[in-house]
């Protein structure tokens, strides 16, 4: 049995919130540079250069690279040999978010209730997904989810005979509908399988993958590659001003599903793509 203290979890999450918002992921910056090589549109190239420059300025000045410092979505892999001491695990994660958003001068973007719409004032509560795994490590992955792109995300329950081809059309149509509203070029997470809710969770989790890294499953990697090509052919381009690059990466997660179902969820992320992890 290994003990991990409440305070260590608080400080780890505080730091993750700040770092994820001020330091753009190296894989995202690499994706911007790859896009710059492929982009023909002058204005598209100019937007990509500004994104690269923006990342540098944010890091230098320790200010967020996007003003929507988003929803804190936490994916936890909790080793079954770990014992958390000093307080409740959920409280530790929320306290880390509270401190990170307060001390890091991040925007508090959550309202307590969608109908009343009163700001919670500290960007809590975090969304916490916990999986218990073998071992004695605690892995915390933080996804920062902005709303402009989340608002254009979609889920559809296809029938098994409609299958993959219908799913691909739906994914491309979702990116098309997202268009300039969701800040392209996008990173797109796809969840296929499970019952309804699992597909959405998988789509969100797929956003944690390194941008543009092909799937380990060769058949899925081919589908991802085709989807990137088809989405790029929409011509929406960087910031929607027209261009060759509309998607930086498409990542698919699959799960078992019911014999009657073919669920497909599409979680769109904008070019301010944020995720970071720590292992305690």
């Amino acid at each position: 049995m290994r003990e991990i203290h409440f305070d260590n979890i608080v400080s780890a999450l505080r730091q993750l919130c700040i770092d994820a918002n001020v330091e753009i992921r190296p894989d995202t910056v690499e994706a911007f540079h790859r896009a710059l090589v492929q982009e023909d549109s002058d204005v598209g190239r100019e937007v990509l250069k500004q994104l690269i420059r923006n990342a540098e300025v944010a890091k230098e000045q320790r200010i967020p690279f996007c003003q929507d410092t988003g929803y804190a979505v936490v994916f936890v892999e909790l080793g079954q040999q770990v014992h958390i001491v000093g307080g409740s695990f959920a409280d530790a994660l929320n306290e880390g978010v509270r401190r990170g958003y307060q001390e890091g001068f991040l925007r508090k973007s959550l309202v307590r209730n969608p109908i009343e719409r009163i700001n919670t004032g500290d960007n809590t509560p975090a969304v916490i997904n916990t999986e218990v795994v073998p071992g004695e490590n605690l892995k915390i992955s933080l996804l920062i989810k902005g709303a402009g792109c989340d608002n254009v995300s979609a889920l559809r329950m296809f029938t098994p005979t409609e299958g993959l081809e219908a799913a691909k059309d739906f994914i491309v149509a979702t990116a098309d509908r997202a268009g300039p509203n969701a800040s392209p070029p996008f990173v797109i997470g796809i969840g296929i399988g499970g019952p309804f809710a699992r597909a959405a969770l998988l789509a969100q989790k797929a956003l944690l993958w390194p941008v543009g890294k092909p799937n380990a499953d060769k058949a899925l990697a081919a589908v991802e590659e085709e989807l990137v090509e088809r989405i790029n052919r929409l011509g929406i381009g960087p910031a929607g001003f027209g261009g060759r690059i509309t998607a930086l990466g498409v990542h698919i997660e699959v799960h078992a599903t019911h014999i009657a179902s073919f669920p497909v969820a599409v979680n769109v992320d904008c070019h301010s793509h944020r995720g970071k992890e720590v292992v305690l």
Partner: protein
Amino acid sequence: MNICETIYIETPLTRKTLKRLHSGDQVQIFGGIYTARDAAHARMWQAIKQGKELPFDPKGQVIFYVGPTPPPPGHVIGSAGPTTASRMDAFTPMLIERGLRGMIGKGRRSDEVRKAAMQYGCVYFGAVEGTAALLSGCIQTAEVVAYKDLGPEAVLRLTVQSFPAVVVNDLYGGDIYAEGRNKYQRPWPD
């Protein structure tokens, strides 16, 4: 469009200035602008319905759809990129009818907004959401003018210098989102 040619424009905007602008033009904005997003627009709409005064006279002014991050020590404002403009569409024509001349945001506008903008004279500018740290550096002053209780959604008056934007919808029906897409769209399969 030629991105090397930047058009410099000063607020408050005049119809003469707007007439020079065409979709796809790269501009830099100088002068005072106001911030307002979802909750502030809902309140301004209430104010108009109840016959009350707006927090500022929209005549000749520019609204920037933004909810900035809090200013760290030594900064006048935090990061400040545009939010999705379509969420303000329902409230926008009433402001355009009252003299609003410019809007800065991201994403497509409704037919009603574009129609009102052409009729009364208002241009929609697109800024790049993922340049919030760069845009912050173009903001020289920021003061709350209304709805302070809305936190990041309060109405601020900003003074901006060399604030970069692209003309999305001009007075002539131009739309860079449609024009840009048409130029680069390719069929699938080949």
